[in-house]
């Protein structure tokens, strides 16, 4: 579904992605973790070309991202992207936030799009907020709307870029729950997160990245019990027991 082969990316002289090789299969949930500045956000942002790659090849849903003929808007419509800062459209109601792209990009009739939106809002437990504006919602509610907004496009892949990092602790659970439910439906997901509880329960695989290099790729059980790389060991120590 997603295949990175020898992908490199630079920000000026900074080598943010260094020979990344990663294969995400259909229906798989892959968690990407690593210290801040390690390149994990850049990695996930290359998948829908918010960040173009400089070298190597990246194939997503059968489309080659380094091929200039690839219709990037068409590909993006197939990929949901959930941001750390939610990025809801503040001038539109919750319902319109969700129906805008289905109506304008997918040309789905308004009524049908609204029905889909309502059922998605039910799924994320926010149906009573359909006419509210983003500013009237808590962070956790906004993020759940953002997930519903992405799902309304019926995407083949969902990408999450630190979806809970901007949330107050008591709101993290509600968002992770929605993501876990989504994983159960067989959605292909790539999740950048520090939530190791989520990673160990939901992920099929964990990729640990540092300095733009994927140092370790393992099943959650192996990764948590027996991390191979020294940097991964340090990282886990810090995330799992930050006080020591």
């Amino acid at each position, binding site marked *: 579904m997603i295949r990175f082969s020898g992908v490199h990316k630079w920000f000026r002289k900074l080598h943010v992605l260094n020979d990344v090789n990663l294969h995400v299969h259909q229906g798989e949930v892959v968690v990407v973790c690593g210290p801040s500045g390690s390149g994990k956000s850049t990695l996930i942002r290359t998948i829908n070309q918010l960040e173009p790659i400089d070298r190597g090849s990246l194939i997503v849903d059968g489309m080659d991202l380094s091929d200039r003929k690839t219709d990037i808007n068409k590909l993006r419509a197939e990929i949901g992207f959930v*941001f750390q*800062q939610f990025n809801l*459209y503040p*001038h539109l109601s919750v319902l319109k936030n969700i129906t805008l*792209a289905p109506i304008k*990009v997918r040309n789905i009739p308004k009524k049908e799009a609204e029905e889909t939106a309502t059922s998605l809002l039910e799924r994320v437990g926010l149906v009573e907020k359909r006419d509210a504006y983003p500013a009237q919602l808590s962070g956790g509610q906004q993020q759940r709307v953002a997930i519903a907004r992405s799902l309304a496009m019926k995407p083949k892949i969902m990408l999450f870029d630190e979806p809970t990092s901007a949330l107050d602790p008591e709101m993290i659970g509600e968002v992770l729950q929605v993501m876990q439910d989504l994983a159960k439906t067989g959605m292909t997901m790539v999740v950048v997160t520090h939530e190791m509880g989520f990673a160990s329960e939901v992920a099929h695989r964990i990729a640990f990245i540092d300095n733009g290099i994927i140092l370790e790729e393992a099943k959650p059980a192996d990764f948590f019990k027996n991390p191979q790389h020294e940097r991964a060991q340090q990282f886990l120590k810090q995330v799992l027991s930050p006080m020591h």
Partner: protein
Amino acid sequence: MFNYQFDWAIVTSGKYFDWIVSGTITTIQISAVSIVLAFLLGLVVAVMRMSGFTPSRWAALVFLEFTRNTPLLVQIFFWYFGSYKILPTVVNDWLGTLNFEFAAGVIALTIYTSAFIAEDIRSGIRSIPKEQMEAARSAGFSYLRSMQYIILPQAIRIIIPPLINQFLNLTKNSSLAMTIGVAELTYQARQVESYTFKGYEAFTAATLVYLAMSLVIAIAVNFYNKYVLTPVRGR
């Protein structure tokens, strides 16, 4: 020493009143047409200026520097005296049928004002967080569609106050069109003065009409801002 006899009747009735009214109508016409065109052109230039395509960015930049850094009066003269020498015959013939003074005035005012409008639009758009564009692009919207549905509706509220300013400037600047013979308000007030030597009354009347028009524009746009855009809540 102060023995001037005011004669307000000159500008409140009769032939000269009709001149002032006719000038007012022409001022409204030239301003209204130019405001609409300047806004549209300004929008296009602003989008070109921000586009990822380098030649379009450069073209917009050259346009902006040229138009903002030369006097409006020179631009009016350029379009009136100079343009027919560079424009194709078809365009000249078409402009001739329209009322060439008026057309040249509209072109000059439109182009001059559009440069300022473009920069106001650009700074309004830049004030919208770039993540909004990323969210829109991620949903599969093209750059222009993202602008249309996501960025511009949010930016317009920020753009409106400076935009009112440009509309008012344009209306006031339209008085310069008298120099190429557009019979607008200032031109007519000048005519009244020439015929009657009642310059004080004539230009007081013109001043009040300009003031009234400016206030109407400001109130109308503020009304739009308050009652049409406010239901759209910001963050």
